């Protein structure tokens, strides 16, 4: 600053130094003219720099070529450094914010930040998929305009967030979400959304399992107890007695089958990996066909179709029981006159054992749950057909132990196809 004043003073003194001799020796007005010209030049110089600063301040850029002249150079230099530092700081902040958002994006839980009026401020991609919103398009929109389920709206407006809200979405896929609302920064809200579809399903399966075991065992037990009471209290003739005892035997046999199946299931679950016997598939398929025919008693056509190239490695008793179960199911759920087709074919990934029928079929919504224990499509019907409700659960476990996938395709009224897909490691060329 002081150097600028000195500079300006020196220039004024310089013009005065020239003007005074000129005024003294020539004419006075010429001296004044020279002095004014000196001051004018200095103003012109200052004005040029001022105009440059004015232009720059309208569109500040970090440009090293920006230089002032004379005393102005210092000002321009400081402005340049200030602008540069500011920009570096902003870039660093931007970087930090980007990393923060990237961290939020990386969370497997959905995150939505709401402002004071419950408008969407931010949401990560997980939340976008969970709630069917889009950050770019819906920023500033009240969240309840898009997530309109009445229970969600009520939960958010009630403001009691001790317990998370369990919400079933129906956008796209059927998912169960658990929503935690956390107040932050005053009255703003942060929503954390967990996908609990799988946990919800397991919970339901466990509840269903206990309820089902009790139910399945209680039914025959009630019948048994009823007959026992009758036998204790009423004197029956020999024939009635015999008939009742037969029925009791039937029910106790039924309970035994259920317990046997439960034990099989738990032993498969805890057993070591199956041995690697070579199973002769051509003769096994033929045996399955004969068994199927015997069960059908001539009411169905049972066809076997095998290309005879591969045999299977695994535990023979387990595989026989699993395949036999699929064939028996096909025969049971196919009306008389239908066809049951047993296939053993090579596939690009390995080989496939399939049982196809022209039976009653299964509605698509039951298929994912078919292999759950005691899951029944039609309660009355399958019990009449003699099933324990554990067959497919056992099949699935046996197949899983052989690294095979059970694939079920079905059309109601047309027929079903149950296929066990074995990987290449499980098969051997004949």
């Amino acid at each position, binding site marked *: 600053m002081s150097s600028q004043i000195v500079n300006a003073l020196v220039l004024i003194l310089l013009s005065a130094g020239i003007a005074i001799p000129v005024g003294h020796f020539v004419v006075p007005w010429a001296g004044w003219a020279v002095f004014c010209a000196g001051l004018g030049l200095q103003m012109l110089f200052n004005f040029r720099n001022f105009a440059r600063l004015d232009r720059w301040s309208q569109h500040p850029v970090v440009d090293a070529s920006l230089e002032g002249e004379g005393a102005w150079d210092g000002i321009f230099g400081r402005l340049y450094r200030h602008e540069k530092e500011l920009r570096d700081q902003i870039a660093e902040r931007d970087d930090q914010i980007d990393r923060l958002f990237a961290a939020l994006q990386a969370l497997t839980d959905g995150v939505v930040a709401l402002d004071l009026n419950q408008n969407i401020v931010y949401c990560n991609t997980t939340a976008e998929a969970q709630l*069917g919103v889009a950050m770019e*398009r*819906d920023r*500033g*929109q*009240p969240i*309840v*305009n*898009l997530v*309109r*389920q*009445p229970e969600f*709206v009520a939960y958010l407006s009630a403001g009691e967030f001790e317990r998370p809200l369990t919400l079933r979405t*129906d*956008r796209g896929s059927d998912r169960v979400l658990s929503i935690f609302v956390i107040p932050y920064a005053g009255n703003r809200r942060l929503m954390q959304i967990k996908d609990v579809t799988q946990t919800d399903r397991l919970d339901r399966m466990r509840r269903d399992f206990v309820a089902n075991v009790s139910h399945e065992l209680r039914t025959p037990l009630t019948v048994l107890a009823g007959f026992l009471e009758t036998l204790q209290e009423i004197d029956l003739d020999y024939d009635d007695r015999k008939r009742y005892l037969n029925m009791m035997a039937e029910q106790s046999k039924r309970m035994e089958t259920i317990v046997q199946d439960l034990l099989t299931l738990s032993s498969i679950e805890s057993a070591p990996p199956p041995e690697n016997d070579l199973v002769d598939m051509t003769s096994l398929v033929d045996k399955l066909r004969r068994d199927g025919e015997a069960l059908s008693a001539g009411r169905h056509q049972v066809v076997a179709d095998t290309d005879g190239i591969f045999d299977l490695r695994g535990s023979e008793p387990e595989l026989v029981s699993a395949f036999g179960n699929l064939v028996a199911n096909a025969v049971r759920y196919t009306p008389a006159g239908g066809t049951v087709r047993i296939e053993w074919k090579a596939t690009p990934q390995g080989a496939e054992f399939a049982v196809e029928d022209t039976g009653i079929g299964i*509605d*698509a*919504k039951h298929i994912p749950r078919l292999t759950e224990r005691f899951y029944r499509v039609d309660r009355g019907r399958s019990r009449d057909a003699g099933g324990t409700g554990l067959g497919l659960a056992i099949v699935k476990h046996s197949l899983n132990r052989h690294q095979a996938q059970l694939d079920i395709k079905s059309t*109601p*009224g047309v027929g079903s196809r149950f296929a066990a897909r074995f990987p290449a490691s499980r098969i051997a060329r004949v």
Partner: protein
Amino acid sequence: MNESQHLSSQFDDELSRLRTHVLQMGGLVETQVSAAIEAYTTGEVASVKTIVETDRKVNELEKAIDDDCAHIIAKRQPTASDLRLVLGISKIVTDLERAGDEAKKIAKGVRRIYENGHLPGQYGVGIRHLAEAALAMVRQALDAFARLDTPQAADVIRADTDVDAEFKSIIRQLITHMMEDPRTITTSIDIIWIARAIERIGDHAKNISEQVVYVVEGRDIRHTKEKVQ
């Protein structure tokens, strides 16, 4: 967006609250429709009562929102896009209320079918498919209204043709079924009513979308062959 700034920010608040109320009512109707379809597929008649009771709430909301619209018009004398928004809303709530009524009809039909002990059998899949399409239309129409998104509204209007076609194919199937076995006529007629109600829900979603186009663009595309976008 439509939300231009007004001198009175209170007016902006009123309009945005009105929109949120409409969408709340829409959420209720969506739940009604999906609950009715759920009852149809699972046969759980117990939920029918809830659906019928919730319909009363939908009716009350319709009245309350209509009242709000009248108030805004009288007090604020809105013009241009604000006026279109208020007018559009008063038509949208009518369609929503009717869609809610159709959901109630479906629920009652379900109760009749299951109380007579007849199961819809092979019609389960077809009807559910139709219902899912109609429900998606309602959802998209409401999303389009929330976002004032005309391309999505146009999608809904186009989807209505598919729902209509599917409805017709279900009816044809039912007619064949009834001719083959006259004992199924009672159930079949109930199923026809249900299919009809679902098809109407699709129509209401289409009407809502047409109102969205009107609110945003000021074009009235009802009853015209005018192409949307």
